[in-house]
């Protein structure tokens, strides 16, 4: 249990999340993957806070903010998904949503 290992773990989680975003076509599936990415990032914070920081409390608080923001993001994203689902013919397929061109 070293810093390097923890960082590697967080990188792996991050890449798994990316893989999910890249391969999923459903919006909800992509959201799940995004959660994994955020999780990896949180582990990164915690690892540094535990192994390095002179003040681990501050390091612990940052993931809490990340969680809060991701909760807000999820709430909106899922609301959008529900609104889109109401439209007929919408299968929540990322490839059908190209015209948003975000």
């Amino acid at each position: 249990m070293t810093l390097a290992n923890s960082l590697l773990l967080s990188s792996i989680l991050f890449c798994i999340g990316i893989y999910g975003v890249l391969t999923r076509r459903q919006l909800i599936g992509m959201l799940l993957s995004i959660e994994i990415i955020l999780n990896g990032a949180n582990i990164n914070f915690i690892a540094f806070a535990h192994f390095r920081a002179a003040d681990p409390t501050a390091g612990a608080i940052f993931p809490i903010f990340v969680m809060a923001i991701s909760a807000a993001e999820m709430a909106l994203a899922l609301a959008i998904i529900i609104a889109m689902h109401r439209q007929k013919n919408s299968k929540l397929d990322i490839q059908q949503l190209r015209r948003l061109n975000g």
Partner: protein
Amino acid sequence: MENTIFYWLAGALILMSLLTVSVQNLLHAAISLIGSFFATAALYLLLQMEFVALAQIMIYIGGIVVFMVITILLTAQLGAKNLFPKTWPQRLWGGSVCLSLLAVMWLTLQSNDLPPATPIAPTAEPASLTAVGFRLLSADGTGFLVPFEIISLLLLTALIGAVVVARRDPKPAAAGVPPVPADQVSGKESS
């Protein structure tokens, strides 16, 4: 002892995450995500971050994933045939991109001189529940009261926004307004 637990937890975490991104059934994926979050929470406990671990369980598992599961149940027509099977080219493309990114990160980690491996002795208390709580809400120079309040405002906004976006239109669109194309609805209503 700690090392063993760490590696087991890490293995479980990676496995669960892989399942989350790879299973076809979204409900199964969500359940794997719960497992992955539990493993993460355990890892946080191991790293002496009790508050974060608790928050992880309560916010992520108790809040977000449950919400997701509900949404999946509402929208994904479980039992129907999977409409979007993954294809091998897709997997290859995603996999290669991810692996290359991982390689980059790994190499960066290796090439970078990490600070000495021995942990610096923590000068402060480990992040106990009390410490985090006081720290979060204290209004002196080191506290996080203002960000906390801002986050609470953000959450409130998101809440209202979500309600507005997801609300069913009480009456059909007024005559003369052209019907909005399916894939533009979200953008229009959330604005």
